């Protein structure tokens, strides 16, 4: 059997093909890589508004008291004090302190939670939740009946407030229930681009209708996962499988502020017992040449000091940009480093996050 036939399809797979998208396998899903060109889609997202199909991502629905049902012990961030209708980013760890996945917790009610996880990890995450929630919890993996559309860009609010009045009142990292064309949707002011934007969770079978309704607005263009990756690297957001995995401690990955040091959670002892071997760093190429995942990182004397986890050309900086794990003394802004291999090294300079500082995220 070929790989393609084993991929999952979102409700929009045929719509993407009809729109001329170049399709690609990602995290076990058949997804649109790009519709026109990555540079054109980048420009449109940063300046106008773009629509992404993110139905591949996983949604778990949990009912129960956070502490009593075991949920609080699974996630690293504080959740018991979350106000209703807010979201909070964090992670879940294995007993060795490695990252099983990063996730966002939505508090829908005092004992009603939605957890959003990465597409490639849905199965193992569901297993982990089932193993560690107790009989006080109701758990449902709703990933295959919950679709997700991301509307992102400086004009996203102007577009969405017409279709779902009230979304203009949402603050960053809050959400509420709305209707689009009479279809119930949960809409949060969140995203993965660094621009003002919204994530729209809707029933799987109604996703096509909502996608088409949003695209009738002529300022909105569909956009693929190719540019989504460029946008997130420009913002220095981590991606599971690159900056995060089960062998990486959340401290090494720079997730310190998403860990509640005051509470008990799975992996906590291991994390505090294990000194970080290296730390995450960000660097800008001296030219248009771009670092790529797997490239090595060297100091000015030519000593190997780390490895690139994500790299791309940045349209904003008109230069290559990279994220990688490097030795702790070399991650300060301004330090000269090189990326590549023994034969071919290219110059770069360590930078402060994010690479892209002009996003409309909090506007």
């Amino acid at each position, binding site marked *: 059997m070929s790989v393609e036939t084993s991929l999952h399809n979102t409700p929009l797979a045929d719509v993407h093909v009809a729109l001329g998208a170049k399709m690609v396998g990602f995290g076990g899903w058949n997804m649109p890589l*790009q519709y026109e060109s*990555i540079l054109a889609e980048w420009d449109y997202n940063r300046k106008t508004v773009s629509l992404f199909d993110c139905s591949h991502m996983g949604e778990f629905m949990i009912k129960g008291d956070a502490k009593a049902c075991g949920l609080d012990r699974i996630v690293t961030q504080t959740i018991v004090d979350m106000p209703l209708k807010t979201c909070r980013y964090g992670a879940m760890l294995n007993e060795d302190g490695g990252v099983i996945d990063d996730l966002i917790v939505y508090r829908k009610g005092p004992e009603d939670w939605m957890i959003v996880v990465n597409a490639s990890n849905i199965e193992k995450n569901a297993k982990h939740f089932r193993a560690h929630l107790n009989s006080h919890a109701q758990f449902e993996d709703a990933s295959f009946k919950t679709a997700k559309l991301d509307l992102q860009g400086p004009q996203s609010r102007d577009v969405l407030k017409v279709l779902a009045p009230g979304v203009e009142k949402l603050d960053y990292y809050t959400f509420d229930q709305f209707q689009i064309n009479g279809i119930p949707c949960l809409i949060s002011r969140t995203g993965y681009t660094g621009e003002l934007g919204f994530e729209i969770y809707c029933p799987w079978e109604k996703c096509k209708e909502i996608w088409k309704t949003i695209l009738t607005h002529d300022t909105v263009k569909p956009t693929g996962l190719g540019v989504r990756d460029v946008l997130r690297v420009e913002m220095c957001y981590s991606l599971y499988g690159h900056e995060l995995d089960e062998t990486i401690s959340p401290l090494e990955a720079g997730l310190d502020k998403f860990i509640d040091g005051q509470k008990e959670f799975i992996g906590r002892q291991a994390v505090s017992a294990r000194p970080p071997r290296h730390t995450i760093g960000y660097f800008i190429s001296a030219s248009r040449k771009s670092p790529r995942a797997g490239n090595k990182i060297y100091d000015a004397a030519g000593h190997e000091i780390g490895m690139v986890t994500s790299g*791309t050309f940045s349209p904003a900086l008109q230069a290559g940009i990279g994220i990688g794990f490097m030795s702790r003394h070399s991650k300060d802004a301004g330090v000269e480093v090189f990326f590549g291999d023994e034969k071919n090294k290219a110059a770069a300079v360590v930078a402060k996050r994010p690479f892209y500082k002009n996003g409309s995220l909090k506007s």
Partner: protein
Amino acid sequence: MEIEENFLYTKEHEWVSIEDNIATMGITDYAQEALGDVTYVELPEEEAEVEQFEQIVSVESVKAASDIYSPMGGKIIEINRKLEDTPALVNKDCYGKGWIAKIEVRDMDESTNLMSAEEYRNYLDSLH
């Protein structure tokens, strides 16, 4: 997919146009389309001696880097420095302003290892 009738082609999707003993080379329309937006071309050094099908250039798009091979052996006598600042020429005009290098050919017989436009068209068809 655009193919220039009088050029010769490689299986790696490079084109070459030979006049007298000077071969001008670049990447084909198929290659630039597959790569997407070209963001960087790592040009070879002038005066370098290269073998036929030796890697001479790296072309980068937003998400990936690809090796480019010399369609003919010889000495590189000129490189397209415009690509340093405007690599998008490779996308916009791959057979014209997006040329990459000129090579002084050492052995004209090597051209028998290349495909004609007709053969390259059939080759592309065979890939699908």
